[in-house]
């Protein structure tokens, strides 16, 4: 068995080699380029919606209420006579901002806490691990429904930025324990490895040991998990907004748009269709990217 295995394994042990190999692997996959391209378009859309439309998404002309798609309004208009194409383009911002910010916060917070738990051990470990376990006991969208609906009533006058922060904070608060668990076990595995002990003996401080020696080991699994997390968050944000506990008008968001269009699904299917396509394309792009990253970084699964 060992012979064929040694023929095919090309992944090096050093972290540097792992990332190089992963990049080589990614470069060769068309799916990676397709998803990365799609994501780039959506990020551009989120950052500079003006590049895609000159129409003000909030401009309402009641005389144009519920116009089907035309050369004037590519995706038609909604009940208030607003341009659906513009609103769909502007809707990217909410999904991308929530998805990316929540993912970054979750991986950084979870990664740090997990590494600290493994490195310090003792009561710090117990506190972080047990605390995480409690949060993992909450299925995460359900937990978000509980948290956000208790806040939703109390903060019904909140502005768009506050609402968005609240959604991001909720998603992060409920998801960091999984990342922490991954980071903890990755660090735990090498915590007493010779090279770490050597660094300690040579007088490296805890910060240096954590970031220089332990982080590289935890990074790959965290990146894999994080890249799969973005799609989950984008989808969760849309679901929460659809339910009415996430983003709410005046925030322009695909989830809100799909929710609002539900009453007119018989007369004006296009109202539902276009935000749906954009939402699903975004989630799909992130799922594909996450898959590709996982396959590249985790040779075992190839």
């Amino acid at each position, binding site marked *: 068995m060992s012979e064929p295995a040694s023929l095919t394994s090309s992944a090096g042990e050093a972290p540097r080699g792992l990332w190089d190999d992963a990049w080589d692997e990614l470069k060769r996959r068309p799916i990676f380029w397709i998803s990365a391209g799609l994501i780039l378009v959506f990020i551009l859309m989120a950052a500079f919606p003006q590049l895609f439309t000159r129409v003000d998404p909030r401009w309402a002309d009641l005389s144009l209420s519920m116009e089907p798609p035309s050369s004037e309004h590519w995706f038609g208009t909604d009940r208030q006579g607003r341009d659906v194409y513009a609103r769909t383009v502007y809707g990217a911002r909410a999904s991308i901002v929530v998805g990316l910010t929540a993912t970054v916060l979750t991986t950084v917070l979870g990664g740090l806490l997990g590494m600290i738990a493994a490195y310090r051990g003792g009561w710090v470990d117990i506190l972080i691990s047990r605390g995480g376990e409690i949060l993992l006991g909450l299925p995460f969208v359900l937990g978000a429904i509980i948290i956000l609906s208790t806040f*939703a009533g109390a903060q019904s006058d909140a502005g768009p930025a506050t609402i968005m922060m609240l959604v991001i904070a909720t998603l992060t608060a409920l998801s960091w324990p999984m990342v922490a668990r991954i980071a903890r076990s990755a660090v735990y595995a090498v915590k007493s490895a010779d090279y770490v002990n050597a660094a300690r003996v040579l007088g490296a401080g805890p910060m240096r040991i954590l970031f220089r020696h332990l982080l590289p080991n935890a990074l790959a699994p965290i990146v894999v998990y994080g890249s799969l997390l973005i799609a989950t968050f984008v989808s969760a944000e849309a679901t929460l907004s659809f339910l*009415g506990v996430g983003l709410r008008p005046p925030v322009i968001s695909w989830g809100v748009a799909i929710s609002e269009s539900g009453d007119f699904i018989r007369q004006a299917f296009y109202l539902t269709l276009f935000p749906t396509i954009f939402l699903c394309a975004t989630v799909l792009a992130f799922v594909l990217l996450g898959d590709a990253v996982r396959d590249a970084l985790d040779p075992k699964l190839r």
Partner: protein
Amino acid sequence: MGRYALRRLLQAVPVVVGTTLLIYWMMWALPGDPFAGRCGERACPQDYIEAMNAQFMLDQPLLVQYSAYMANLVQFDFGVTYNMVPVSTLIAQALPVTLRLALIALAVEAVVGIVAGVIAGLRRNGYFDTLVFVSTLVALSVPIFVIARFAQWGLGVNLGWISPTVSNEATWAELLVPGAVIATTTTAVLARLARTTIAENLRADYVRTAIAKGLPRSRVIGVHVLRNSLIPLITLLGLDLGSLMVGAVVTEGIFNINGLGGLVYNHILRLDSTVVVPVATLFVLIYIFANLVVDLFYGVLDPRIRYE
């Protein structure tokens, strides 16, 4: 086994306490008036406030409050709605429908997910594997509320194959499509896991031994590979219950099904957390309990854990 079960039970206690305390704290003990904005657009009625104060001892210290809350919870008393209907009554009415729906969803998930994943894993890179890969990709990319909307519109409104809304009786037949909708995401996740697990197990040393023993292929796969692949799949089935529940909230809402999910959905729309939070809490407790059962079952399936 006994010791493993006991330890696992003891481990669940802090999780239950922690989770309920957390929910409780958010519900009643956050700074500010706990009744502000609780009952939707208007202020909470005075007799509701009085009833809740009496039941949950809201003027007492936090620990007393929480004990009262837990005591109520253990007796399945979740307080009253603002128009003084006990939440437990609403739950009792909704439970049978949701149970039926959950059984359909779990059956769809387990059967479709495992069968598709196992076949794909056995014939990797074949035609069927590609089909499974593409369909799981689609299922993972389309949020359940979108699928529910489209199923309702396509199958219900356009084609007229199903009724767009489910009647009050909520028969098995009526719940079939909503149940399948709820299960889409988890089915895809399960199929993918089944595929990789089977593929990994096929390469395992003990499978090589089984082949070397001269066992027929059907027995190598049917007994050895499947038995060993079952453990992660069952674990996932438990963890997936969470997303099944969220799916239930959305789908029951869209198909107007009078189950627990519909209860949550409709009261979210009214911003009425007097019902949302207790029912969601019930979901969480069911989730924790189900995963406890899965873990115990895990011990039955895996001797390495049983005799730890």
